C-alpha cells in the first residue's frame, strides 16, 4: 500500500481534515509528521496515495487549508 501525507499549518487544521476525510469515507490516520519531511510541521494526515485527488478535492471544498502533500 502506498501512502501520502498532508501537512498543515496548524494542529487544528489537521483535526478538521481528519474529521472531514473520515466523514467522506476515506481511510486516513493522523500521525506525527514523518521525520524526513520536516522537524516542525507537527501532525499530519496519512492517506492512501490512490485517494490523493479525491481527498484533496474534498479538503479544498470544505475549506481546509493545507501546507503540502508528500508521498511517503
Amino acid at each position: 500500500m502506498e501512502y501520502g501525507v498532508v501537512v498543515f499549518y496548524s494542529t487544528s487544521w489537521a483535526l478538521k481534515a481528519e474529521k472531514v476525510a473520515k466523514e467522506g469515507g476515506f481511510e486516513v490516520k493522523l500521525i506525527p509528521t514523518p521525520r524526513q519531511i520536516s522537524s516542525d510541521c507537527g501532525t499530519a494526515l496519512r492517506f492512501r496515495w490512490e485517494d490523493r485527488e479525491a481527498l484533496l478535492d474534498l479538503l479544498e471544498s470544505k475549506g481546509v487549508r493545507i501546507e503540502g502533500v508528500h508521498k511517503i
Partner: protein
Amino acid sequence: MPKVIDARGLSCPQPVVLARKAMAEADELTVIVDNPTARDNVSRMAQKEGFKVEVEERGEDIYLHLRREEKAETLPLRSAPSGPTVVFIPAYGVGRGPEELQEILIRGFLHTLNEVEPLPDTLIFINTGVKLTVEGSPVLEDLKALEEKGVGILICGTCLNYFGLTDKVAVGSVSNMYSIAEKLLGAGKIISL
C-alpha cells in the same frame, strides 16, 4: 576534493534525500542549502548517520561540510539500563492539558513506537488508559502491530471492569495488579506517560 551536492532551491525533503544518497557513496561531502530548515534537517540526519557536520554560511547559502567519523571517535554508548523497558500508560492521553491535544499525542506516540527502535518490552494500560485497548479505539491498529512484534500488552482488569469494558478488549491481555506490579518492579526502565 569532496563531492558537492547542490540542494539550493529544493523543498523538503529533497535536500535530505539527496544528502543521504551521496553519504552512502562518500565519506566526505559538502551539501549546499539555502534555508535553515534544510540546514537543520540535513545536519540532524548526518549526525545520526555518524558524520561530523561543519556549517559555513556564505551569503545566502549554507555550506554543510560532512565527514564520516571513525568509529573510535564516536561517543561511547551510554550505559543502557539492564532489564526490560516498560511503558506505563495511565490515561487516555499524554500529559495534562486540553483533552483533544492529549489524545493527539497518545495516538502519535503509539503510532511512532512502531517506527523507532528499540521496541519496548511491555505496555501497561491502567485507569482511563484501558480505553485505548478496546473496540473502536483509534490506536488499535498500532497496538496490534506492536503485539505482533512481540511487545507485551497488559491491561488493568479492575479498570476495564470499572468502565464496563471487559468484553470489549480488542488487543493484549487482561491482567491484574500482581502482574502489573511485578512488571514495574522488574523493569530496567519505566517510561510513564
